[in-house]
């Protein structure tokens, strides 16, 4: 894709440039408003602690140092936590998509008897949450306490995402599915050979939602996992940033962080960057899937 490549979408041919300019301006403003917070955190993470404490909003590092990152990435514990989180994200999202795609397809079929009941069955789980205590008891009774699976299995089906995906499937042209059924194809074949290839954007979107949710999962890690070698990333990072009250008894910044160039502000910024950058990089890679399924075009012929 070349830098200044223009889209050839028919809807965008021959647009007047004044409206275009306004649109570009608005988009630039919105983008800047979104980027500034990230730039600030990035700047703080590379700054000297004292400078960061004196400044308010920072757009550029002051007293450039990578000591905060050295502190955060010291020791194998963090890399291990990355591994745990990557495992959870990959395996979890795969499981999520398998379950969500199948169930959403089923619910999208308008001729299914009992469809309303099944939909209600799903939607209730989104609104009613039994709370953390019954959830904990269940995980304990299943023997999943302190297991990585306690992070993956409970959220395996998100009703919210399921309904969204169902909606996408409903918008698919019914004729193709009908003709395949008449030809005698099994539901499974219809799903895998027709519906899924046509649903690139939907699957990419829902997959992204699930992946980000797994990556950011924090509470399940705190409640279900005690062995800190099995901690996911977010839990470990939050325990790195020590509550100031505890360190007041006899620890200086030098004691706490090993050097005086960093402090709680910069360490916290570095931990945020360490958590955000890998997953935020996922979205750009998925943007290529936001194109229409080519199969449809071929079948029209």
């Amino acid at each position, binding site marked *: 894709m070349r830098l200044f490549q223009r889209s050839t979408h028919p809807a965008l041919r021959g647009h007047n440039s004044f409206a275009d300019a306004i649109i570009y301006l608005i988009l630039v403003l919105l983008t800047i408003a979104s980027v500034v917070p990230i730039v600030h955190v990035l700047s703080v993470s590379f700054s000297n602690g004292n400078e960061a404490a004196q400044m308010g909003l920072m757009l550029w590092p002051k007293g450039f140092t990578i000591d905060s990152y050295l502190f955060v990435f010291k020791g194998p514990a963090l890399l291990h936590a990355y591994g745990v989180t990557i495992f959870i994200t990959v395996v979890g999202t795969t499981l999520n998509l398998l379950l969500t795609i199948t169930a959403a397809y089923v619910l999208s079929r308008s001729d299914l008897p009992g469809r309303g009941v099944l939909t209600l069955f799903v939607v209730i789980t989104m609104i009613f949450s039994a709370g953390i205590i019954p959830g904990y008891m269940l995980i304990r009774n299943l023997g999943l306490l302190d297991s990585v699976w306690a992070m993956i299995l409970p959220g395996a089906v998100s009703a919210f995402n399921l309904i969204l995906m169902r909606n996408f499937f409903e918008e698919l042209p019914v004729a193709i599915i009908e003709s395949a059924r008449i030809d005698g194809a099994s*539901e499974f074949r219809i799903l895998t050979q027709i519906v899924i290839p046509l649903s690139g954007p939907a699957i990419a979107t829902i997959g992204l939602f699930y992946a980000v949710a797994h990556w950011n999962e924090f509470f399940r890690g705190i*409640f279900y996992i005690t062995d800190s070698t099995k901690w996911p990333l977010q839990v470990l990072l939050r325990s790195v940033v020590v509550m100031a009250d*505890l360190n007041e*008894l006899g620890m200086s910044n*030098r004691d706490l962080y090993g050097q005086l160039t960093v402090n*709680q502000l910069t360490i916290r910024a570095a931990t945020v960057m360490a958590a955000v950058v890998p997953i935020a990089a996922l979205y750009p890679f998925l943007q290529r899937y936001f194109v229409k399924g080519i199969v449809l075009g071929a079948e029209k012929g």
Partner: protein
Amino acid sequence: MKRAFVFVSLLTIAVMLITSCAAPTPQVVEKVVTQVVEKSVEKVVEKQVVQTQVVEKQVEKQVVVTATPKPLAKDAKLSLNIFRVGDSWDPKNAYLPLIEKATGLTLFWQQIPSANYLEKRNVVMASGNYPDVINLGVAEVAFQQYYNDGLLLPLDDYLKKHPIIWNALPPEIWEALRQKDGKIYTIPRMSGIFPQTINYRRDWADALKIEQPKTLDEFRAFLQAVKDKDPGAIGKDKLIPFVPNRLSGGGGLALSWVEPVMTAFGTPWNAWILSPQDPNKIVYAATLPEFKDALVYLRNMMKDGLLDQTYLVSTERGLFKYYAGTVAATTDWPQFINLRREAIQNAYKDAKPALNYIPGLVGPKGVKGGPVITPNLRGDNQSMSLTISASPAQVEAFFKMLEWQWTDGYPLMTMGVEGKSFDVVNGLPKRRGRDAILKSDPQYDLYMLDRLWLVEPPKWFAFRPDTPSFADIPADEMTYVQGVLKDTVQNWVITSYAMNTNDKVILDNIADIQSKTEEFASKVILNPNLDVNAEYDAFLKALKQVKFDEVTAKVNELNKVKDVQAAWKAMQASFISAIETK
């Protein structure tokens, strides 16, 4: 169709298999272990020694990994499941095995990040699978709940059998810990006295030729002079005259960090004090008219740019601004003088910061304010309680371990291991700096020892040169601060006559009362144009809605002025003895 069926069944079976394999069951592990043991019997003697060591290691590893221990075999070592607050925990630290060896126990430590400790403790206690030992302070709301539910163990018999622990604290403290049934359920963590004083830049005051402020007006004048003349050459946009230690925080935290001002008006924050009219009645300080004056004073300070503009709003820690060297005065505890000085020195390499502490200021009506002592008399929230999950043998083991930590184990718990975490310099043990330890032997990180205490003995918090936490303080600073501490202990302001709050009406409404007070105070301080008197009347009305009068009546019923004063006096004596110079 067949494919679909196969796919679905495979998926379901796979899921079930995975969930069942998720946690290694004891039977599975036993089989592995016995297999290895059987194999080792067949080998030669030398090899056997090696094999059994391997088996031991495997057993050890398995035992440490499991979070909720299954019942151990009869001849296994006694275990304790300890649930506590612990940030930055390294399970592979070198001290844990040493402690286990010395006590003969197997210890399961659940170290929960402090931000989530309360929630997790709640969930764990609700599930019925209690840990043996938990961090739980008598002053916590949850304590009453767990106590009423019968989830805690009385410790009186064990305390009788362990005089070392019993005698470490004065009897008044133990009495204050007794519950409705007259029994004691907690080992309190008496973290020492931390009086809230004003920590100010003596070097700046000297440059301005100003003496240590003794009244509120003098203090204000000092701040104004700093603002006008900037003796430290900080720069107008960075200089902040006065920043309270905390700028925000739940539970009125930020408002509790301006006590030198509040007490100078006779109205400490969130305090139940003696009524000025009737010294036998206990009243809530915020309802006194003087409270309005205190709030207006703070409001004016903020309006005139003397008080940090983001007070009550910002999520930053005020103390860190002081560390950055741009602040003339903050509220602080005196014991950490060297830490503050070091940080400021680091921020401004050419400065020569000299920090002094003002124990209290005299208010405009002549009221002698401050100092205020922060921790309560019943131990802080890192005290330890035992749950009904602990067997008598385990409780006994707990007490033995506690004794060990306070006596024979004290050198290990405070200094670590020679050659790794401390060295003997001129015949005296001296701890290495944390950065040095982390570079050479990170598993000997002294920070981990903080996490391995059950409860620290009171002597650990004593402000003396031989206490490791304070060993780095230069002698002159130590003497100075000891003087300040003695001064504060003699003159402290009692901020709570409501020592006993164990009543349903009080517990139900006390948080709401504090909440209304926070709201009133914040509104006044942050809004220069607000009509204080109208707001005050609205505040009193709002209090009535949360049963304020009943609460006040109950507080007076449960707390006799004379008894409270006696308890505080006893505390004074014990605290003074803890500050003696050696």
